[in-house]
């Protein structure tokens, strides 16, 4: 079955990849993956709770 890959998906914030399995002109299965990770979950661990907003606010700048 043919597979379509769109990577990168543009006009969004962040990095996204979509793969779709096509059968007779219909998408039968699809997978999406974000292709960037910074580990902010790990970076904020152990820090002063009053400062965490500085970090988590930077997850998305839009």
């Amino acid at each position, binding site marked *: 079955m043919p597979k379509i*890959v*769109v*990577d*990168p*998906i*543009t*006009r*969004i*914030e*962040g*990095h996204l*990849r979509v793969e779709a399995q096509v059968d007779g002109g219909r998408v039968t299965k699809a997978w999406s993956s974000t*292709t*960037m*990770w*910074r*580990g*902010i979950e*790990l*970076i904020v661990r152990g*820090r*002063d709770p*009053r*400062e965490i907003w*500085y*970090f988590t606010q*930077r*997850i*998305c*700048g*839009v």
Partner: protein
Amino acid sequence: MASDLRPHIRDEDIAHQLARRGVSRRDFLRFCAVMTATLALPQHYVGRVAAAVAGAKKPVLIWLEFQDCCGNTESLLRANSPGVGEIVLDLLSIEYHETIMAAAGHQSEEARAAAIKEPGYLVVVEGSIPTKDNGVYCTIGGRSALDILQEVGKGAAAIISAGTCSAFGGIPAAAPNPTGAVSVQDVLPNANIINLPGCPMNVVNLTATVVHYLTFGQLPAVDQFRRPLFAYGARIHDNCERRGHFDAGQFVEEWGDEGHRQGWCLYKMGCKGPATFHNCPQAEWNDATSWPIGAGHGCVGCSEPNFWDTMMPAYGRLPNVPGFGAEATADQVGLIIAGAVGGAFALHGIAAAIRAKVNPLKKTETKVEGN
């Protein structure tokens, strides 16, 4: 740097493009005046800047996003002074920018490949580059950020690192740096790089850097962190609108107290202005309507390397910021200086002691050290 660094260009000059977009000559000259002032050039340079920008061909620009939050792109797209938004975008022929380009998938990757065929283009990088585990923590079109930057960087006339992540590693590089994130200059140490840190960068500084490039054919003068001096040559503290309160010993002691309502100095609330080099007090944000300290919160030091680790605790006071108040007497000032010098040189310390004996004063402290 010679004219061979002039970027690859498109045919129509900027003056014609702006006219076509309805940007008036008056708006354009006002823009050039703002840029001349931002670049700290004498006023008579306005004509030269205007002539250079109007006659320039649009440089080809490739904007790469890696471990980013899109905040610098937002800064670019939010430029909304009269006509300036158009001018910023029209100054550049943006051939590749994931967030704003129409193409997607392999078409977008082909656009990038086409744009780098002819060397001499400009590159803006937003976001850090992960190096751990072969760079798997950021891939675009199946290729790692590291791989893409190395390829695109080869033919670049200049690379502008927009924002603290691409300039210094930024938030992804904060301890414990889970992805091995590094800056552009770490990946390409010999490239012609200028850093415009800030979280995010201020678009005024990006525009001014491009205008400088078009006017003089080279990047502006930089400091030891490759930051342009016109924008990062002075501390926030030096030009802060609340500096008078610092000098007068008027500090916010608690959020929402009388001093906070009166707009007093935020130094004791953890403001990092005395240790941060940036032109926020003059350039401001959101079309120069406000800025963090103006809005009542201390500076976090976002334009400094590794500020996510070195400028914390965010609400902790910087130790031992030197300074004497405008309201201190000349005698107090003299004693403080003698004391400081005496600490380093015993001989001068003795001289200071003698002077103090001749003109005895009560032991004084700078007000900033009082808690």
